[in-house]
């Protein structure tokens, strides 16, 4: 049990300490692992005051993504620059901080910090490279639109204007996260912004319920974008991002945000190196996939068209060519996915048995 201001200041301290340590020592594997585990423990302890398990799982999302990246199998042959190695640590610390603060205006400011870090790495001898300009276009444009939508929501002009503001806020934030369409290659730390944004927006939807239909609409847009994008460029994380947006738009029912937590955990476990998982891992109980589908379909009982569309969009994930991945995931990743799937199923079963909130 930790008070939110103490948690936020501890996260800030971790951020400074991690950057300093990585800069000084050059980032050995042991140090990286230690820092990632410390962040995971910190997030777990800091979110322990939430009453339900789903919120705690959501709060650990960025730290889990950092752990997956640090202990991932494809780190050996990769020779990224030192700044590129430090970027996921910075982004995950910022994401955890944004979730600890939990306010939309500070969320925009923290996303701006992440954007500055990305752009600073993209500056070369000839100025920004092509991907850097694209990141600037999407990131800053999305943040501007989101800030405008937030002002409209705060000004409280009327119902119709609130709807427009909700669409602007959600669309701008998703654009700044790069969820609907990502330029260039998928870089490490691609999912950190989305892992921070979606819980905060889902929390803000309790104050502004007009955000829920906007989230559902944007989730459908993201899913259809992921389905319609060319086969060679499709990326498994895009499907999970669409599912997470869709889950964030569900009205807060009895399960208390469990679909959102499950989708975010699945998103945190996808790394850009292996891109897509072999399709055998999509079946139960190997992946949170089936667990999430079960929970989502259960939640969507009162929204049949959305469930139908989402189910149709899941088909390409299932049909994604088996064996096209660059290599087999290691046993550690498989065990992690198995454990998460079991946790999600256990949570759903516990909730449906009438356990309520943990």
């Amino acid at each position, binding site marked *: 049990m930790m008070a939110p201001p103490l948690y936020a200041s501890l996260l800030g301290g971790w951020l400074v300490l991690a950057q300093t340590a990585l800069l000084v020592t050059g980032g050995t594997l042991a140090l990286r692992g230690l820092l990632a585990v410390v962040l995971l423990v910190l997030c777990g302890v800091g979110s322990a005051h939430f009453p339900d398990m789903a919120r705690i799982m959501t709060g650990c999302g960025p730290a889990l993504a950092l752990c997956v990246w640090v202990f991932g199998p494809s780190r050996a042959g990769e020779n990224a620059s030192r700044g590129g190695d430090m970027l996921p640590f910075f982004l995950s610390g910022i994401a955890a901080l944004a979730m600890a603060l939990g306010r939309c*205006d500070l969320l*925009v*400011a923290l996303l*701006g910090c992440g954007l*500055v870090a990305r*752009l600073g790495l993209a*500056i070369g001898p*000839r*100025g*920004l*490279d*092509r991907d850097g*300009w694209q990141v*600037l*276009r999407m990131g*800053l*444009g999305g943040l*501007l*639109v989101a*800030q*405008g939508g937030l*002002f*409209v929501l*705060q*000004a409280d*002009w009327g119902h119709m204007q609130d709807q427009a503001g909700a669409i*602007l806020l959600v669309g701008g934030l998703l654009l700044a996260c790069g969820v609907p369409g990502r330029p260039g290659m998928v870089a490490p730390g691609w999912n950190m912004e989305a892992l921070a944004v979606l819980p905060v927006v889902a929390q803000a939807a309790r104050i502004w319920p007009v955000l829920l239909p906007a989230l559902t609409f944007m989730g459908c847009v993201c899913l259809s974008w992921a389905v319609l994008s060319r086969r060679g460029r499709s990326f498994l994380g895009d499907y999970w991002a669409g599912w997470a947006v869709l889950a964030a738009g569900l009205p807060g029912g009895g399960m208390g945000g469990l679909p959102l937590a499950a989708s975010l955990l699945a998103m945190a476990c996808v790394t850009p190196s292996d891109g897509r998982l072999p399709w055998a891992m999509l079946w139960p109980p190997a992946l949170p996939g089936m667990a999430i589908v079960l929970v989502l379909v259960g939640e969507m009982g009162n929204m049949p068209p959305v469930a139908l569309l989402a189910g149709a969009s899941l088909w390409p994930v299932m049909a994604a060519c088996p064996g096209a991945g660059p290599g087999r995931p290691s046993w550690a990743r498989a065990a992690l996915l198995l454990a998460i799937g079991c946790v999600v199923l256990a949570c759903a079963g516990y909730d449906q048995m009438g356990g309520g909130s943990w």
Partner: protein
Amino acid sequence: MLVLLFGVLVILSLSTSGARGGGPVWHGACMAACVCLSRWGLGRVGPACIMAVGLAGLFGLLGVQMLHVPAGARERSGLRLAGGLACIAVLAQVIMQGPQVDMTARLMGMTGLAAILCGVWGACIARGPVALCAGLACGLDGVMLLAARADSLLVMGEVIIAAIGLNILLATHPRSHGGAA
């Protein structure tokens, strides 16, 4: 009638002057005038005015840098629309003092939103860095208008930092034969 004529003149002057770096400067000056007039009308001249004028100065610097990077003049229609709306907002600030303050504030908010949307739209369809920076500068103007309306110093500071960042990015762009990024 006179006011309408004046507005049309302002819009015409904007649309003819926006071929190169003049667009962001003109737009930023309109935004600063709008913020200062509304603050003066409310009787609260404070840091918001200074920040708005500073932002206009930063965009002036951006316009000077844009002169040195060649660019095509294709993607400016959205910026012109937003610039015309900004001029109308300035005129409304000048004309409607007194009891219709709420209406001018609402018009200012609408102008800010229109500037954001037009600027981001212009940035989305832009090919080269100059048009991209011009669109984003227009969007930053819109955010500044909305922040002045909502009296949020945090967002104003972010806008200033973003404008400084745009200046740095454009300064690192090679000058000789750039624009092909």
